[in-house]
Each structure stands twice: as C-alpha cells, then as structure tokens.
C-alpha cells in the first residue's frame, strides 16, 4: 500500500517533469526539468531495488550528461529566449502521433500481454555479482564500452575544437 503510494507520487513527479522538458520554451529551464526527471527515474530504480543503477543514473545522467547539456546551452547563446516558437511546423502531427502511439503502448502493456512474473528476491550481493559478470560473462561489452568511450572522446574533441578549420 505505502509502496504503491510512493510509486504513484514518484512517477507523477517524473512524468510531469518530463512534460515540462518537452514543452518549456526556455531551454535552460527545460534542462533543469530534465535533471528532475532523471532524479525521479533514479527513485524508480530504487523502488525496483536496483540501487546501483539508481546511483549510476544520478552519477552519469545528472553529473555528466545534464552538465554537458547545460554547458552546450550556454555555449550557443541567445537560443534560450523564447523569441520564436520552440516547436517546428510538424508539432501538431507529432502531438497526435505521440498520443496515438502512447495509447497503443498502454493498451498493449496493460491488457494484451501476461508477463511471466516470478516471486524471486533480489540477492543481497547483486553489486558483487554485477562486477563479476562485467569481467566474466559480459567481458566483450565491457571492453567495447571502453573503446566506445575512447572513440566518443576523440570524435567529440575533433568536432568541437575551435582551431584547425
């Protein structure tokens, strides 16, 4: 009961923040609402007992990605004032399409499928198991992630540098 109440509050907070992200005219405020959405999603992860993912969410999404987005907003000035409409020409169709898609997804999720749910508990040493799996069974994705990060850094630096045009 209590858990469900907490879930409803957290998800309302998350979804309202997300709505503000996609509708607010001021890009900086939009980014701040993005941060609160990330925080709400982290709270959902805690409810799912994925505490490590919750903290990784705060660490990477809020600490790194949101900071990066805010820096980029600051670098391209003048575009956060709502002088022109924040929406493009296809906004109405996008809205209609999104609502249709959303209803479809909700219909499928709620009524169509009977998910094979188990009652198994999350083991207490999940983080340790995760660490073992990263260098054991999932070692290829693990190393590829490192290559991906290296490539992303090189690419981003090449693109964003001011010199050498």
């Amino acid at each position, binding site marked *: 009961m209590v858990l469900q109440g907490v879930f409803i509050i957290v998800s309302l907070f998350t979804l309202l923040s997300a709505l503000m992200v996609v509708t607010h005219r001021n890009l900086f405020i939009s980014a701040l609402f993005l941060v609160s959405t990330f925080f709400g999603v982290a709270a959902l992860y805690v409810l799912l007992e994925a505490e490590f993912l919750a903290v990784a969410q705060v660490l990477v999404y809020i600490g790194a990605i949101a900071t990066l987005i805010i*820096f980029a907003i*600051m670098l391209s*000035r003048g575009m956060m004032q709502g002088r022109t409409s924040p929406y493009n020409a296809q906004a109405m169709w996008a809205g209609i399409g999104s609502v249709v898609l959303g209803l479809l997804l909700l219909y499928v999720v709620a009524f169509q499928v009977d998910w094979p749910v188990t009652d198994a508990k999350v083991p207490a040493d999940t983080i340790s198991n995760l660490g073992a799996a990263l*260098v054991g069974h999932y070692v290829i994705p*693990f190393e590829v992630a490192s*290559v991906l990060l290296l490539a992303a*850094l090189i690419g981003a*630096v090449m693109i964003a540098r001011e010199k050498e045009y």
Partner: protein
Amino acid sequence: MLNSYAVVGVYLLIALAFPFVVLYIVSFLRPSKPNPLKNSTYECGMETIGDTWVQFRAQYYLFALVFVIFDVEVVFLYPWAVAYNKLGLFALVEMAIFIGLLALALVYAWKKGILEWQ
C-alpha cells in the same frame, strides 16, 4: 533493502524541506524595502553593459567531455572493485585493458591541448 531506503526517503524529504522552510519562516522577520537601485545587477556600481549571455568558450565543454568519459568509467570500476576479492587474475588484466584505453583517451586529450587552460 527498501526499509533502509525508507529512511533515506524520509531524510531526503526533511533535508530538502528544511532550508526552504527556514527561509519562509525567516521572511517574516526581516525587513524588505526594495528599490530599483538596490535590485539592479551587482557589478561594482557600474551599469551592466551588454547581455548576460556572453558566449562561453568551448574550453569548458571540452573539460566536461573528458570528465564524462571518466565518470562513466567509475560506473564500471566500482562493481569490479567490490567483486575483486573473489575474482581471479583475469579480472585485473581486463580492468587494466579497460583503464588503459581510457588512459589513451586522456593522452589524446593531453596531446591535443584540451587540458591546457587558455
């Protein structure tokens, strides 16, 4: 597990509310006599020239980029560190490769002069 997070949740709410509640209470105690001069932007007494949104150099963004790479690394490093005692030597080798690749990223940034503050 969720019981201990109940404490975190309650603490979070109270710690979040505390500064704002105090601010609200105190707002009845203090004077409020605003005037246009007082409320103007503080800049050594001079009138502000130009827009606040002076454009920032890409420098800041490039520092943040290097930070992002290492921040993501942390997400991989910590579970590995927790599990390390029960793993074999291969864990060390694999993490050495992982960190070595990220060190390459650092070296690249270093050579390209990203880490110089101009």
